[in-house]
């Protein structure tokens, strides 16, 4: 019990640091987590809504929902990637499992996501979406998406200790993933082969699920349910296992 409390205390301290550092020199601070998705949405709507007007129902929300999930996935995986190297001095002295560092980055991304909700939820109501029962599925989607990103992050964090290049490769990969997520265009616009690729992109599944239950008020299909659960759980378990197996090697190298 006392150990769990300590675990939580460390995660909170580390998360506090992440957030303070991130917004250290800005006036608005964490409010940027609310503002930046809104501004992105504005820009994207201005640029793309005329192009896909007929194909996408409620473009601003279509975009924003996807963007929030993509952003959360990107933030978790990318920030977890560098966590071991960033904290090398603390790693030697930490009393609780080293996993706290990873979890604190994950928690930071989660807090950011919750702040973005402050923009998202009012906007949802303002644009005429009625509260529906399907919305209760949203937290499930959120947690599974976090787990998926976390799993990928575990593996990347180990790789990053040995190859710093991964960071640059992964940034490019994320950009590619963004375009393969049908985040600002309707999926029907691209050729069939491309659609196949997008359908097999896990991040797209999480977006699709969120759009279904939040924007369009429909129950996600069984197939989609299965995909988000399998991707999330498998990625998390596999990543964590690899992380544990390589922990000692990392500590010797760092």
């Amino acid at each position, binding site marked *: 019990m*006392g150990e769990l*409390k*300590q675990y939580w*205390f*460390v995660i909170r*301290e*580390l998360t*506090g*640091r992440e957030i*303070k*550092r991130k917004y*250290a020199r800005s006036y608005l601070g964490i409010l940027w987590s609310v503002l930046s998705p809104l501004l992105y949405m504005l820009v994207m709507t201005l640029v793309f809504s005329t192009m896909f007007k007929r194909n996408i129902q409620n473009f601003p929300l279509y975009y924003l929902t996807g963007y929030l999930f993509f952003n959360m996935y990107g933030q978790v995986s990318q920030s977890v990637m560098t966590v071991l190297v960033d*904290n090398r*001095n*603390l*790693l*030697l*002295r*930490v*009393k*609780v499992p080293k996993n706290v560092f990873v979890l604190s980055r994950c928690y930071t991304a989660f807090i950011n996501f919750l702040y973005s909700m402050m923009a998202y939820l009012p906007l949802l109501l303002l644009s005429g979406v009625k509260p529906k029962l399907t919305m209760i599925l949203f937290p499930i989607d959120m947690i599974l998406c976090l787990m998926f990103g976390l799993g990928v992050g575990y593996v990347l964090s180990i790789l990053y200790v040995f*190859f*710093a*290049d*991964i960071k640059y*490769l992964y940034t490019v990969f994320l950009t590619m993933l963004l375009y393969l997520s049908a985040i600002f265009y309707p999926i029907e616009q691209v050729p069939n082969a491309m659609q196949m690729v997008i359908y097999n992109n896990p991040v797209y599944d999480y977006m699709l699920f969120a759009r279904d239950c939040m924007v369009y008020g429909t129950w996600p299909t069984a197939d989609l349910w299965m995909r988000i659960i399998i991707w999330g759980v498998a990625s998390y378990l596999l990543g964590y296992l690899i992380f544990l197996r390589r922990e*000692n090697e990392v*500590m*010797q190298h760092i």
Partner: protein
Amino acid sequence: MADTQPVISIKNLTMRYRISTANVSGLKDYLIRKIKNQINYRELLALDDVSFDIQKGEVVGIIGTNGSGKSTLLKLISGAISPSSGEIEVDRRKIQLLTLGTGFDMELSGRENVYLNGSIIGYSKDFLDGHYDEIVEFAELQDFMEEKVKNYSSGMVSRLGFAIATAGDAAEILLLDEVLSVGDEFFRKKSLKRIKEMIHGGSTVVMVSHGMGTILDNCDRAVWIEKGKLRMDGDVKTVCAEYRKLGGQ
């Protein structure tokens, strides 16, 4: 002394590092060399079959030339890394490792770092709340705690690091890696006094230092490790004298 249970018991401790002989600078380089089969590994025995016990209340200095495995030994005792073979029996919850790289976040204030660092090394929130003033006072940083650590001098940073690690009576086993040779002379005296108080209170201290003076002044026993092997273990004066002889050669 022999019939009491030792606080730290080290048995046949061996630490093997696998070092790539080719100095690979990145992924591209690695792949190219891997394909060309140029990646060879060389084994480095950082510690080779080292065994000794440390009793409660002892102050043990670990000496040896650079790269002889002293810091590796401290890391192994603290549990930061696991040995290749052999074992260490010690209650890890009682250990406090103090090294020069304090792990402070330069962008945060002194106060925030006390809490961040304190939580990492195992203090609870209540403990930190209760001992905060004492830590600040010992580090002599009363007017600087809201200041960012990046504006501190290196002496101030190590003072704060030392004050946090030795706060309260928390540490029963204190591992010191070259920390008694930093800060100005006044603080050095003060920190030595704190260490001595802790020893009187029953703490066990293991210190690594290049300064023979520090070891001779503070320890009652010395362990000499040379190229990973235990060369000598015994009374501090005898071991240090032998060590000096080697240096004179």
